[in-house]
């Protein structure tokens, strides 16, 4: 049994968000109406994705420094879980946009940046599956991951802020933080971000632990002894 406290915290936060997210008062705004509650679910997807991609970035650099294949496993699984949250964020964004901006896909710089960074991370998986040799796969994958991260940050966080965008907080658009996100919403939004991040980290660590067990068993059977076991 590993440390469970943060998993339990994640469960409590997410359940709180589901209950409070629908029952707490929200500001009455035109166009958005009740869909403003999507903020508790759509935005944390992206935050979680960025945190998971950051972890993958960290382990990619660590792999390049140490050459330990277990760090490569961590980088891959963090990226995979990040891609899942990326897709969830994109699809929920399209659903939300359909009913507030009028179309599932509008030519918005933030959407373009998100689409590009999503494709860049898809290419990471494709690139890896195209390489046979494990060492080569890990090394090229790690270098590519660093490159992908270095593109994702400006595409999602910097470039959309330099031009006009429909998204709040970009261009001339006011952020939720200015006046829309009142103290009632903060009470739910911050736990939502923490809860979803913990949930994402939990899913990622489950996959990592499974892959590490598999890695250890493969090495055991190949060499007859368990040299990775400390």
């Amino acid at each position, binding site marked *: *049994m*590993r440390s469970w406290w943060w*998993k339990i915290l994640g*469960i409590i936060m*997410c*359940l709180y968000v*589901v*209950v409070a997210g*629908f*029952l707490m008062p929200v500001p*009455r*705004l*035109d*166009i*958005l*109406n*009740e869909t403003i509650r999507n903020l508790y679910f759509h935005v944390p997807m992206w935050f979680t994705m960025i945190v998971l991609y950051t972890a993958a970035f960290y382990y990619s650099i660590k792999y390049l420094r140490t050459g330990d294949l277990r760090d490569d496993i961590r980088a891959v699984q963090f990226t995979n879980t990040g891609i899942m949250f990326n897709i969830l964020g994109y699809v929920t964004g399209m659903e939300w946009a359909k009913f507030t901006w009028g179309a599932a896909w509008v030519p918005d710089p933030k959407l373009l940046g998100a689409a590009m960074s999503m494709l860049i991370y898809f290419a990471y998986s494709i690139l890896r599956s195209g390489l046979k040799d494990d060492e080569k796969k890990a090394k090229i994958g790690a270098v590519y991951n660093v490159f992908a991260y270095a593109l994702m940050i400006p595409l999602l966080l910097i470039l959309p802020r330099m031009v006009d965008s429909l998204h709040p907080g970009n261009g001339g658009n006011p952020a939720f933080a200015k006046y829309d996100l009142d103290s009632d919403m903060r009470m739910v939004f911050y736990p939502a971000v923490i809860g979803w991040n913990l949930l994402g980290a*939990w*899913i990622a660590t*489950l996959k990592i*632990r*499974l892959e*590490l*067990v598999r890695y*250890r*068993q493969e090495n*055991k059977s190949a060499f007859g002894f368990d040299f990775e*076991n400390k």
Partner: protein
Amino acid sequence: MAKRTLTTIFLLLITAIAANAQPEMADKLRADGKIYVVVMVLATIFAGIFTYLVILDRKISKLEKEGK
């Protein structure tokens, strides 16, 4: 002239009323108490997903112990 002033006042009044109107929210759903049904369904789904994750976590812990 008086007619035009009256029209202007009338238009101003209408604009003021329109500006004061609240955006439409799902107040009826809340008044009915049906929102609790939605919350219950979602809480059930989340509880199910979390139970599943806990079971997975324990299974992987067992695998890790066996491998050692």
